[in-house]
């Protein structure tokens, strides 16, 4: 469970929108390679952070029963770089939600600065099997993951109805 690209939720409106933040730090190994002497958070990981924020929003909308998989990056535009010491704010909104899939729109900000815009398509994979079979257990929202969310709840974030 180390592949988590945000640190906590700040806001969570079930089925509608979520805001998560991440503090970027030089203790993250990859920043020393991206790039040597010029550490900036890779855009691909900003997309991943948005996918996790939005993916949990989509998953929670159906009580974490569906296996929510990132199907497609509809649009990803970046305007600024993100450096160590900054706090990234991922805001995701559900635009369309189906039994089989969902579309989210997202903005990434550091303070008042718009860093990027990322729109995503998620698949509820069991509803889109196309003849293929996936394991029955929910490998996206695992017990470990749900336990982590419970921890958030117990840490005084009652206003976040997760």
């Amino acid at each position, binding site marked *: 469970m180390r592949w988590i690209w945000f640190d906590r939720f700040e806001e969570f409106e079930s089925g509608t929108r979520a805001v998560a933040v991440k503090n970027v730090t030089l203790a993250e190994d990859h920043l020393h390679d991206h790039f040597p002497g010029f550490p900036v958070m890779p855009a691909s990981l900003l997309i991943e952070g948005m996918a996790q924020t939005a993916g949990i929003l989509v998953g929670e909308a159906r009580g974490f029963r569906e296996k929510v998989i990132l*199907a*497609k990056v*509809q649009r990803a535009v970046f305007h600024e770089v993100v450096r160590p010491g900054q706090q990234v704010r991922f805001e995701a909104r559900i635009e369309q939600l189906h039994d089989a*899939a969902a579309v989210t729109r997202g903005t990434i900000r550091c303070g008042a600065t718009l860093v990027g815009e990322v729109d995503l*398509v998620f*698949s509820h994979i069991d509803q*889109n099997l*196309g*003849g293929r079979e996936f394991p029955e257990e929910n490998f996206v929202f695992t017990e470990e993951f749900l336990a982590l969310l419970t921890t958030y709840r117990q840490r005084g974030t009652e206003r976040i109805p997760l």
Partner: protein
Amino acid sequence: MATMSRAEIFEKVRQSLVDALSVEPDEVTETATLFNDLGAESIDFLDIIFRLEKAFGVKISQDELTQNDIITNPAYQENRKLNAAGLKALKERIRDGDWATFEKDPSIDKIQSVFTVGTIVNFIEQKLAAK
């Protein structure tokens, strides 16, 4: 809403496909196939459906578009391939499809290869007429 002409529907379908598949507008012709000509992958279908819903204000399910009632009917298939009766039923339902590839290998999970831009326009025409 006033009735939309086929040309108007086509233009909106074209824009949806341009946005979903990053193709040039002039590549999107009535006879272009989504997969072979426009380079769609199966996952793009979800994106296309969402864009069409938004553009036309209709609800579309993937099952409806891929004629799930036919392709999951046991009478119409053997070993996950459509039989002659299934193919006939599908052809009656999907007009302006491109059947050349699918007829060689009518595997159910390759049904999407049949879809042309015209097929999508027909589908939307029917949806709007039923609204």
